[in-house]
Structures are given as structure tokens and as C-alpha cells.
């Protein structure tokens, strides 16, 4: 396996830093775009990128904060972008599209690319799969895919209910039953919307797990849920990205 930093063409043709991990061997194999969470392009996210290479995929994570904070500490970059209003939906879509195109253009590619994100990245994974031609999408406890924030809640984010009928890829959803955002009710709502729209999806909700149960460096980590979740992800990508 090799892991290193590359520059890819992001939204609008902008050159954007990205972290690439690739298995040994010539392929062909599928690709995975990893969307980092709101705390940024950090060590924990890069560990996940390498794990996808270990699973047999070319995996790349674009630095969504590169434009505002090139070379900055991930936490400082996240704070800068947050203060500036966050990552616009259109730019996120363009950056993920650029990452998918980068993966498909590699000589090792089998042409199939999936996307995965956690927390804010979970919502963005669904957003990307509603707007880009992808072969699989994974949403790990993304808030505000469904659900309506209270009127007095100062959010700069909207749900994706109006976009869900245009979902272009099968969706794997992994959730914690103790999570409040997304709540179990919001997960049911998402399930019902996708079922009504005839969209392929597979959801798993874990007991004794809340938000961020995959995060091994946080008190929210739940080993049983995370281990099972990783197995679900591996099986889902194997089925849809055809790496084997």
C-alpha cells in the first residue's frame, strides 16, 4: 500500500489537495471517495482512507478546506471555514465529482466509485449521490438528511428531502439508536422516502450506540457497532464496486 498527498481538480477546476491511499498491484479495482467530517482533513479521516486501501480500493479524500486554509492545521482550517459560513453544497458536489473523476481516470480503475462520509460528511455523501454518477454511497449518521430543524434554530444547513428522489446510487445507512440527530424517527423517515421512491437502500441501526460510534479517539466510540459497521461497509462496497 502507498499513501500520499496529491492534487486533484475540484469544483470549478480548482486545484485541491487530497489524500490518496492505493493498494499494491495493478488492479482493476474500485475507488472510494472519503468525505472528511466537519473537524476537517485530519488524522482520523486519513486512517479511514488507508483502511479502504487495505480493503482493496483506491481511496481519496479531498481537503474540503484547502481553498480557505491551505497547509493549515486541520482544526484551524475547520475553524476558519466554519467562521466563514461552511462549505457550500455546490462546491462539495464539485469536489466529490472531481475526486470521483480522478479515481476513474487512474490506470487501476475498474470504473466504479463509491462515496462515504461520517457526521456532516454523511449528509454530504447523500448530497453527492443525489447529484453525481456514483456506484454506491454510505451515510454514517449524517444529520439533516431528513428532519426539520426548529424555526428558531440558527442553521445554515437544509435537509435533502427534495433531492432524495434523484438519488443515483444504492445507499448504505449506519446509525446509532441513541443518536438525536439523526434520531431514529428521522432514520425511519429517510427509509420511507427512499422506499416510496424505489431507491435501493440498506439501513442498520445499532443498540448502545449514539452519534460518532466509529470514532476510535472519541468517548462516543462503540466497538461492537463500529466493528459490525465496518463489515457492512466492506460487504456493500464489495457488492457494488466489484473489487474482488
Amino acid at each position, binding site marked *: 500500500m502507498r499513501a500520499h498527498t496529491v492534487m486533484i481538480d475540484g469544483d470549478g477546476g480548482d486545484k485541491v489537495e487530497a489524500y490518496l491511499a492505493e493498494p499494491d498491484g495493478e488492479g482493476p479495482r474500485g475507488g472510494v471517495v472519503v468525505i472528511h467530517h466537519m473537524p476537517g482533513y485530519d488524522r482520523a479521516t486519513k486512517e479511514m482512507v488507508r483502511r479502504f486501501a487495505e480493503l482493496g480500493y483506491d481511496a481519496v479524500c479531498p481537503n474540503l478546506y484547502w481553498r480557505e486554509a491551505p497547509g493549515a492545521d486541520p482544526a484551524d482550517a475547520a*475553524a476558519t471555514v466554519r467562521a466563514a459560513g461552511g462549505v457550500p453544497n455546490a462546491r462539495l458536489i464539485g469536489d466529490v465529482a472531481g475526486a470521483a473523476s480522478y479515481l476513474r481516470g487512474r490506470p487501476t480503475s475498474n470504473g466504479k466509485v463509491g462515496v462515504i462520509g461520517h457526521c456532516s460528511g454523511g449528509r454530504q455523501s447523500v448530497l453527492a449521490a443525489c447529484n453525481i454518477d456514483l456506484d454506491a454511497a454510505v451515510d454514517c449518521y449524517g444529520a439533516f438528511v431528513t428532519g426539520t430543524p426548529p424555526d428558531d434554530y440558527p442553521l*445554515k444547513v437544509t435537509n435533502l428531502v427534495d433531492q432524495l428522489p434523484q438519488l443515483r446510487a444504492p445507499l448504505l445507512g449506519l446509525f446509532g439508536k441513541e443518536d438525536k440527530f439523526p434520531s431514529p424517527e428521522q432514520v425511519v423517515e429517510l427509509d420511507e422516502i427512499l422506499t416510496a421512491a424505489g431507491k435501493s437502500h440498506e439501513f442498520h441501526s445499532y443498540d448502545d450506540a449514539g452519534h460518532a460510534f466509529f470514532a476510535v479517539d472519541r468517548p462516543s466510540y462503540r466497538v461492537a457497532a463500529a466493528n459490525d459497521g465496518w463489515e457492512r461497509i466492506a460487504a456493500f462496497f464489495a457488492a457494488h464496486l466489484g473489487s474482488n
Partner: protein
Amino acid sequence: MCTYATVTTEITGSAKGPGGSWFHVTDATVYFDHPVHAMAEHTLNLDLAAPARGPGARVAVELTASAARALVVAIEAALASAPPALLID
């Protein structure tokens, strides 16, 4: 969850930041969301920053909700204890 909520305000003062250097701060960002370091699912996060000096010009604090409220009370108490004549910027 990521709350996405962010409150910003202009400030003026100084903070001791990266490398132990003091610098002039111009902006404060306040939000209740996931911390980077604190061992809690959510914290009140406060950034005192000088954006003109780049992303690294920042002093970051992550407090539990109760700690943040206690800090607000302490700040208000300290301001209230000062003679009003001293509180004119």
C-alpha cells in the same frame, strides 16, 4: 451531531497563541458542537482569532456546557466588580 450553528462577533484585545506569542485578536467564533480534544460529545467552543494573520492565528477553547455557563457568570461578575469608570473602552 454537527449543529452547524455558529455565532460570530468582532472583538478587540490580545491572546497568547501558537508558539507562545501574543497577538491582536479581531474575531470571536462561538459554537456548540463536537470538540476536537475535549472528552465530551459536544462542547461550547470558542475561537479567538485574527483571520488576517491566517488560520493558525487562533486560540481555541472547548468547554462543557456547565463550564461555559460558569465562565459566563465569572466574566459578568468580574466586569460587575470593576468601577464603571474603568469599563469605558
